[in-house]
């Protein structure tokens, strides 16, 4: 078998792998099985007198679109069961409204006040409709990500039974969403060194958002950029799962990761982001509720990300070893 033929098959398999769901070991297993089948067919065709290149093209064409074959071979597992997708959207909406009211409260408040563990500082930025709208959108993006994280955790624990019968029909790819969440965790881990206050980014006080310069006094906070990144990643998963629109998901992929990278650059450049300290949340020192809880989640995700990356390297080398034995 020539090197070109093997590379062609490998490219096809790589594309099939991107569409596969399931656990890593299952994907590895399915890819090896698929690869063995492809080469069995190629061998058969070359015995019939075809050149290897032609045989490979014939076989791969007969198998069809690699992404389709990959998703049929090992269908993507839903991050949230379809029965919970509608419930997730409803909860996001409820949390958004609550969060938005907090923003409104902070906009009109003259003095700091507390709502349970959340400390709210008056917004001293220009109080106009546009400002409020931008802050409201920021909360929407944040809420969508936060509620999704909560849902995934709860559904994994099997404790979520709310509105189970309501079906939206969307399927989220667990693997890709976890990867996204892990990347977010890494971003937050970096940001952790530059802690300030989670809500202060869009509910600024004396050291609030107006003190984060990047390209002038921006109203777009780093956290909001991260939230946009989460939401575009979710949208991508919904498109991918529901319609299989690969071009759209690719565009969303690029857009969402650009937001993620931009946020990372801003965090590094401004040296300030959020009140998310592992020491605070885990040790309970001055823990500040939502921020501390999220920080714990994000740091754990960052650790998962590191484990996934390490596992990927080991898997890759194991697979190569098996193939060339």
């Amino acid at each position, binding site marked *: 078998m020539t090197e070109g033929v093997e590379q062609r098959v490998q490219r096809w398999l790589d594309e099939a792998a991107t569409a596969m769901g399931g656990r890593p070991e299952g994907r590895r297993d399915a890819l*090896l099985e698929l690869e063995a*089948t492809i080469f069995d067919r190629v061998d058969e065709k070359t015995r019939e007198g075809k050149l290897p290149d032609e045989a490979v093209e014939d076989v791969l064409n007969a198998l069809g679109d690699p992404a389709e074959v990959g998703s049929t*071979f090992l269908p993507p597992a839903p991050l949230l069961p379809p029965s919970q997708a509608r419930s997730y959207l409803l909860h996001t909406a409820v949390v958004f409204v609550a969060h938005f009211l907090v923003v409104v409260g902070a906009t009109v408040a003259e003095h700091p006040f507390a709502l349970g563990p959340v400390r709210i500082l008056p917004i001293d930025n220009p109080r106009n409709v546009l400002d409020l709208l931008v802050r409201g959108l920021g909360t929407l993006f944040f809420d969508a990500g936060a509620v999704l994280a909560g849902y995934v955790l709860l559904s994994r624990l099997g404790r979520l039974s709310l509105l189970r019968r309501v079906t939206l029909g969307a399927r989220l790819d667990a693997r890709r969403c976890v990867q996204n969440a892990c990347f977010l965790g890494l971003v937050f881990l970096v940001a952790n060194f530059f802690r300030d206050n989670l809500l202060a980014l869009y509910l600024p006080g004396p050291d609030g958002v107006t003190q984060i310069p990047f390209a002038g006094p921006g109203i777009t906070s780093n956290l909001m950029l991260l939230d946009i990144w989460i939401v575009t990643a979710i949208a991508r998963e919904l498109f991918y799962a529901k319609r299989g629109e690969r071009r759209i998901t690719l565009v969303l992929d690029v857009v969402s990761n650009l937001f993620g990278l931009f946020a990372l650059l801003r965090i590094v450049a401004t040296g300030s982001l959020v009140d998310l300290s592992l020491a605070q949340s885990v040790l309970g020192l001055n823990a500040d509720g939502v921020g501390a809880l999220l920080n714990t989640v994000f740091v754990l995700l960052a650790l998962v990300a590191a484990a996934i990356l390490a596992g990927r390297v080991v898997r890759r080398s194991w697979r190569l070893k098996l*193939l060339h034995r």
Partner: protein
Amino acid sequence: MSSLFDKIGAELRRGLVQIVALSLLRERLYGYQIVKILAAAGLETEEGTLYPLLRRLESQGLLLSEWDTQGSRPRKYYELSPEGRAALPRLEEVWRDITGAVGKILESDSPAVLAEAEAK
């Protein structure tokens, strides 16, 4: 219209593959061998149908699988598990009942009359 026939035909075949695959796997075979046996028997089956089915049967405990890495390339062999061997005769019985019932309906001029006759 022919694409509709193709679609329905493919669905019917997909339903059959389960019992046929279980029956074939009384002996140790790998996926592509099964594809070829099915094609030779006139039951053309795509890999995208067969392999997920084999995985499902394996996860249900009816099949066992094992990688053989001794040959020129690794192959995953499947075989009936003890549970699968125990279940196969019962599944064959269910299959014979189904084909008998379907045969009766297809050959009957009036399914309603058939139902009445069965009731008596």
